[in-house]
């Protein structure tokens, strides 16, 4: 038995995502984004009180939802709002270079931060269909920065093969990272600067300023550089000063539990991951 206040991986993960949000910035999370949904509202209530908070596609400005729901387009998400806008106004902000942050994920995420949310195969002959990127293709290009998150970093070893989420090269690029086969962000005259943080259940990465390859910055108390290397299909850059992430406070964790009584923050995790507990 360990003494102290117990923190779940889901709660620590939420805090890691929330830490990528700056105060006085404009922030939007998209569909199918339970963790960003919790993290953004959490940030608004803690260190980013002057954030312009767009609570999902229901597109309320600074809502105060009574709880966080299972679907992003529910009246729950427009309660206590300051104003309504139509969702297109959020995309306009982005193309104008005024949306500071959003959050994207993918069934595949490559070393440059490109993500596949579309399919395996080709548009004409699709082997596996994913749900689609929603606003990701546009916003990943336009947002000033964005956070990549995945709770499926850990490789799935099947009988005959290993399925990685963090891959050398995506089969299909839905949301763009730093470098694509079509060129770099600068070559492409894109508005935004691309992903600056990648939060996984195994670590937290930024991007190497030179090579634009994902660079390990923080580990969980129960992960190591080896954990990362084993579960990543490409060779990430390892920051010379990799360290264990700071733990949140008890008050922060209690706030997360209070705003998220339905535990939508746990929905993305495999049951075995949720057994990971930390103590503060």
């Amino acid at each position, binding site marked *: 038995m360990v003494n102290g206040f117990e923190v779940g991986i889901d709660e620590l993960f939420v805090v890691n995502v929330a830490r990528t949000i700056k105060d006085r910035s404009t922030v939007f999370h998209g*569909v*199918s*984004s339970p963790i960003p949904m919790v993290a953004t509202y959490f940030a608004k209530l803690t260190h980013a009180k002057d954030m312009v908070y767009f609570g999902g*596609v*229901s*597109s*309320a400005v600074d809502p105060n939802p*009574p*709880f966080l729901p*299972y*679907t*992003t*387009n*529910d*009246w729950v998400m*427009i309660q206590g709002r300051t104003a*309504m806008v*139509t*969702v*297109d106004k959020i*995309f306009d902000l*982005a*193309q104008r270079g005024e949306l500071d942050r959003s959050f994207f994920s993918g069934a595949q995420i490559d070393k440059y931060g490109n993500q596949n949310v*579309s*399919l395996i195969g080709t*548009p004409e002959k*699709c*082997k*596996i*269909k*994913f*749900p*689609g*990127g*929603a*606003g*990701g*293709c*546009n*916003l*990943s*290009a*336009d947002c000033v920065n964005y956070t990549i998150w995945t709770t499926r970093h850990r490789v799935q070893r099947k009988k005959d093969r290993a399925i990685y989420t963090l891959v050398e090269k995506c089969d*299909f*690029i*839905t*949301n*763009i990272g730093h470098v*694509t086969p*079509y*060129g770099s*962000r600068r070559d*492409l*005259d*894109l*508005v935004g600067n691309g992903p600056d943080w990648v939060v996984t259940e195994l670590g937290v990465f930024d991007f190497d300023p030179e090579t634009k390859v994902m660079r390990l910055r923080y580990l969980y108390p129960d992960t190591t550089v080896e954990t990362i290397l084993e579960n990543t299909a490409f060779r990430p850059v390892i920051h010379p000063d990799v360290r264990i992430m700071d733990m949140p406070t008890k008050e922060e964790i209690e706030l997360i539990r209070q705003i998220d*009584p*339905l535990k939508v923050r746990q*929905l*993305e995790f495999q049951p075995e991951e949720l057994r990971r507990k930390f103590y503060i």
Partner: protein
Amino acid sequence: MGIFVERNKLTTLEEAAKIVKDGDIVAVGGGLCLREPIAMLHELIRQGRRNLHIVGTAHGFDVDLACGGGIVGTVEETHVSFEQDFGLAPNYRRACESGAVKIKESCCNTIINQLRAAEFGMPFVPMKSIKGSDEIRFHPEYKEFIDPFTGKRVILVPALEPDVAIIHVNKADVHGNVKIEPPYVADVLFMRASKKVIITTEEILPEEEMKRIGPTIPYYEITAVVHVPFGAHPTSCYPNYAYDRAHIAEYMRAASAGPEVFKNNYLDKYIFGVKSHADYIERIGGEAKMRLLASWKESREKWMELFTYG
């Protein structure tokens, strides 16, 4: 595109559905679990419409149902899933992976701006994004272009003018004036960009009352009006009802079990086997169910319960 001045546009689901032709580009309103025109989709499935080209942004139940009901030929949505709630969309995935539907996936701001181009009478608009994404592989029609004002690369995307929009709304009058509660999602855009617009409405207001509250969209954009209370079920139509999570769970069980089970346990039960929308409402639980789904407004706890039952 289309101006409709008839004084009384009230009609039936059956008649209104005939406005939608095989192969039409159809904008389906609402999004995810909110205010989707499910009663109209039921009718289109019953009438055996085929090869529809469905456009929209982030959707879920509606597109999955339409795929499962066999009326879809092309999907030009940006996302189809049941989100964190039930995850991937079984009928949609099967239709994509079997080649039964053509995938013309797009992105929200792209679709929005293509609709705006149609609304504004512009043949195209430039986008700064898309470049670098493989989404251009779904869209050979996009044109690369150097902006003559800045010298930067942009993508020209053509106007997208749906043949018909089908939208479920809160209130309408018989002339076609429409009141929608926010969030509008893309519904206002759809109504303005489409050649024809069919609305189903929870409530019919007297015209004087509609004038008083101020329509969201004026009558001349609207082709036909159908009075269908609970017409968005099992998606939500606030303030009248939250989404019916238990029903969607039942749907997911049927859809996940394959096309035959889905046909027998869902389509036959709730679409082909019902006599009317009122009959459908009876089958899904009748007044008691609708009262339950309206209970969200009673308290935070009641509202939360609606997210856990089913």
